[in-house]
């Protein structure tokens, strides 16, 4: 079922990522004094990419399933590397997510006044990388985009960030690059181990009948490499630090999309290419991510800095994504992907509220110093409520469906983990409510807060977009879940078949 028919002779996916390369080049050519022009160009093209992402999303035929919008060009044929793009029900929602978050992020970036040109170039490059990862079906190409997505963060955080920004930036970059070093090892292992001499994910995933011991050995670095980006315990510490240090839009993109790259890679690359390795290690992943979920939530409960709180809540939620992956069945995977989407939008909204609306006006994020902001900016309060409810898995918002599917999936494989992970839900509610009360509903304890600047139209529209998505998906999750489910079923099928073939 697909809502709109797109002409098939148009390279939609290439257009998608190129739609953000164009503004990069344009902005490079605009003199840096014309800040407003730069902002407009960036935002308009971000919006355009969102439109394209929507078109692809609705153009994807989920009844037919499988990979669609395929594009293939030879790139480095000697090594079996090609420019292969395509989407299935798993990455289509991710594209949409990135479109939404980058557009909202662009809107939230209008208050950056310092070195505007560089900022926008890097921000858009980051988004290009993310789009690239989600559309690439060639492992090598995917890796190229992956790194492209990670590196601009360093400068973005280092220059425009706050609170120990250099430390945060360096820590983040080193962790992520360490992760990609592991991924590189995994790539080499798959390439050489499979003996197929190709990086085509589709071919690799269907012919992964290389030795069990080998898979088991090299699955670990492969998965861990991606899981670092997804914030898996004990490699999660970069994430809160980085979030806190990053400027708002970057936090949004980072927590909203970039961490999903990790989870996406875990699934699409590590697990699909080494299903036997995955089968051997899933218990360990489940155990570690259980720590993520519960420990992350507990730490969030103790934080006094709002962004740290959200950072740790991301750790907790990404843990749920990974748990969903660890369940390795259709429902769990569906839930994981849904959670990626839901958490992406929700965290983006959080950071938009906390980073942009609150911090940029009050210049503090410490809970005890804030208060009574609901009277000053009720809109922000409502947005925080919506994001918070989604975060604690309130039915009717996107987060609920995701968590539900994840728990369903995990029940089947690790019932104990499902029960233990559920502890995080009331804890989440506790810290979200605490923050909500302290920041918005308590008595104003600072006179200055009564005269904060008004919210701008960019803030309104960006936040509304995100909130609307949360509600729409919360009310009608089938929009996403049917699509995801069909593809997740295919993925599980492929993995099972490969494992079976290996063990026969």
């Amino acid at each position, binding site marked *: 079922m697909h809502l709109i028919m797109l002409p098939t002779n148009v390279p939609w996916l290439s257009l998608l990522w190129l739609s953000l390369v164009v503004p990069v080049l344009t902005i490079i050519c605009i003199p*840096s004094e014309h800040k407003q022009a730069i902002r407009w160009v960036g935002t308009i093209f971000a919006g355009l990419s969102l439109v394209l992402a929507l078109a692809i999303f609705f153009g994807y035929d989920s009844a037919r399933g499988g990979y669609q919008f395929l594009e293939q060009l030879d790139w480095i044929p*000697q090594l079996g590397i090609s420019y292969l793009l395509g989407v299935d029900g798993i990455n289509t929602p991710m594209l949409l997510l990135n479109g939404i978050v980058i557009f909202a992020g662009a809107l939230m970036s209008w208050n950056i006044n310092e070195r505007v040109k560089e900022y926008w170039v890097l921000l858009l490059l980051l988004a290009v990388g993310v789009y690239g990862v989600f559309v690439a079906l060639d492992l090598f190409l995917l890796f190229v985009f992956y*790194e492209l997505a990670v590196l601009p963060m360093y400068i973005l955080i280092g220059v425009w960030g706050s609170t120990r920004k250099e430390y945060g930036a360096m820590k983040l970059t080193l962790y992520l690059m360490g992760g990609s*070093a592991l991924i590189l090892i995994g790539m080499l292992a798959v390439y*050489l181990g499979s003996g197929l001499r190709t990086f085509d994910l589709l071919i690799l995933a269907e012919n992964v009948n290389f030795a069990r011991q080998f898979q088991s050995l090299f699955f670990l670095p492969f998965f861990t490499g991606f899981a670092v980006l997804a914030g898996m315990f004990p490699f999660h510490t970069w994430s809160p630090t980085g979030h806190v240090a990053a400027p708002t839009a970057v936090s949004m993109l980072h927590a909203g999309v970039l961490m999903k790259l990790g989870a996406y890679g875990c699934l699409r690359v590590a697990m699909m290419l080494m299903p036997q390795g995955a089968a051997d290690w899933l218990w360990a992943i489940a155990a570690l991510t259980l720590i993520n979920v519960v420990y992350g939530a507990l730490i969030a409960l103790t934080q006094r800095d709002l962004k740290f709180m959200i950072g740790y809540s991301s750790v907790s939620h990404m843990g749920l994504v990974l748990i969903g992956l660890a369940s390795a069945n259709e429902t769990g995977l569906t839930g994981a992907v849904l959670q990626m989407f839901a958490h992406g939008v929700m965290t983006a909204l959080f950071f938009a509220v906390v980073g942009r609306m609150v911090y940029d006006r009050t210049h503090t994020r410490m809970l005890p110093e804030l208060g009574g902001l609901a009277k000053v900016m009720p809109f922000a309060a409502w947005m925080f409520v919506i994001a918070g409810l989604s975060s604690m898995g309130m039915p009717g918002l996107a987060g609920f469906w995701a968590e539900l599917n994840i728990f369903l999936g995990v029940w089947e494989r690790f019932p104990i983990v499902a029960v233990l992970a559920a502890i995080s839900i009331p804890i989440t509610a506790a810290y979200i409510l605490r923050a909500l009360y302290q920041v918005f509903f308590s008595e104003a304890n600072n006179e200055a807060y009564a005269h904060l600047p008004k919210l701008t139209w960019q803030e309104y529209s960006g936040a509304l977009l995100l909130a609307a998505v949360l509600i729409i998906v919360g009310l009608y999750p089938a929009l996403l879940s049917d699509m995801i489910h069909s593809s997740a079923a295919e993925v599980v099928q492929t993995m099972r078949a490969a494992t079976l073939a290996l063990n026969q």
Partner: protein
Amino acid sequence: MQFTLVEIPRLLPELLLLVLAVLVLGSDIFERWASNEEAQIERNRSAGSLTSIGLVLIFGIALLQSGYVYLLPADAPTNPLTNIVRNLQAGGPYAGELLGVPITPILGAFHSDHLTMIARLTFILAAFVTSTIAYETLKIRNPGEFYALLLASTVGMCLMAGATELILAFIAIELTSIPLYILAGYFRDDKRSSEAGMKYFLFGALSSCIMLYGMSLVFGFSANAGSNGPNSGFMTQFRSIAESTEVASNTTLLVVGMIFMIVGLGYKLAVVPFHAWAPDVYQGAPTVVTGFISTASKMAGFLLLLRLLEVAFPSLVGSVALSYSGLPAVEAPVGGWSALLALIALLTLVFGNLAALPQTNAKRLLSYSSIGQAGFILLGVFAWSAINPLDQAIANTSLIYYLVVYLISNIVAFAIICLVEQQSGSDEISAFNGLAQRNLPLAALMTISVLSLAGIPPLAGFFAKFYIFLAAWQAGAWPIVLAAVLVSFISLYYYLRFLKAMFIEAPEQSERLTVPGTALATIAVVSLLVLALGIYPNLLLELVNHTQVIASN
């Protein structure tokens, strides 16, 4: 075995470089010969620009000769223009035979094959960048001599890349090195420069001796084993050495000689543990010269090493394959020169990159990084031990690709350090503080080259690293590849320090950092090449594929 005149086209680029050197040497006779500063600058500019323009021309001719961009079709009409092209390309690497005689190394000593051709083009490019930056930034005393020495060194490198005989190889090394010793110590009024020149010279001479001793042993071995054979009298040729090993019963002497040669070359290449001189020399030498030394001469050394090991010592290659590499079981035990190089590579990788971490001087940091990079390059050299001929081809391709990419990335980095140093008077990393605010394009170019060195996609350095890892893993050395991957991750830390300084730190002065236009344009073009090679590696890979099998005939 005689030299015939028709073989002159095969040496054309070298000859042209020599002609240019002589021209440059005599060029300043047409200039104002005053001793004041303006006159000196003027002389420098004229000699330097003559060099640069000449190098561009030679590059163009060599490129035309190579046939990589345009190969004259066989049925092209005959007219003076096509005649020139035809004659030129007769000496190019594509020509299978010359006047009915199959192409063999000239006098058995110099092979103008694809490897040499690509190397020539790269060296000319490096020399071009160096001379352009030099005349835009340096105040050079006796500029004619400076550029002439640069060109002579380039000739030496071209010869090193093509040498297939011990004597020519030795002399080519010396022709490369002696001008570089002088260039490193060229600013004799600068303490650091003269000291660098001295150190470079001492270590260079010492390593020459060690290598020569190895050569003499190898010669003795082959003369012993191959006397009365078909190659008698030519026992210094690589292929004679290789053939003599086939009839010898005991190769201990050969092994010792080979180790001496590897050690000697190792000194030249600054691989651990023979690297001690490198940081001092790189830091002390004039920055442009450092760029040239750490890139072009290193590449030439590696090409010589490659040809030497693969053509002269194929029987001693041994294996690096450990069990459990995910590959079909390899029978050969670990050993041979590949294992030796693997050990050196491991040391080099670990030491070079770790030692770079605490550096605060930009040149010194990059010199340690160069040492570290040599470790990656070595992966490509020993990867030739893979048993499958296809994998051997991949090893060679990846090595040459890496060398070219390393050369262009690194030379850009040094060129930019040179420009910054000229403006701020310091070559510490702190001189880069806030470069993005003072000159954004320059900062962007530096970012490209540094990240390419670090191996970040989509820059060329990434594909190079990736490819060379692949090759080494194919050869079975997966533990070393693992180490290399982790080390390349560690290396990112110090490369990022450039980014940190340029983008994050506040500038010490706020006024714009002006850069000469020509220099910036040159750097920009080369950086674009880095980008282009990263996005579309086939641009170069297609050419490099020609070198898959190193000619031994």
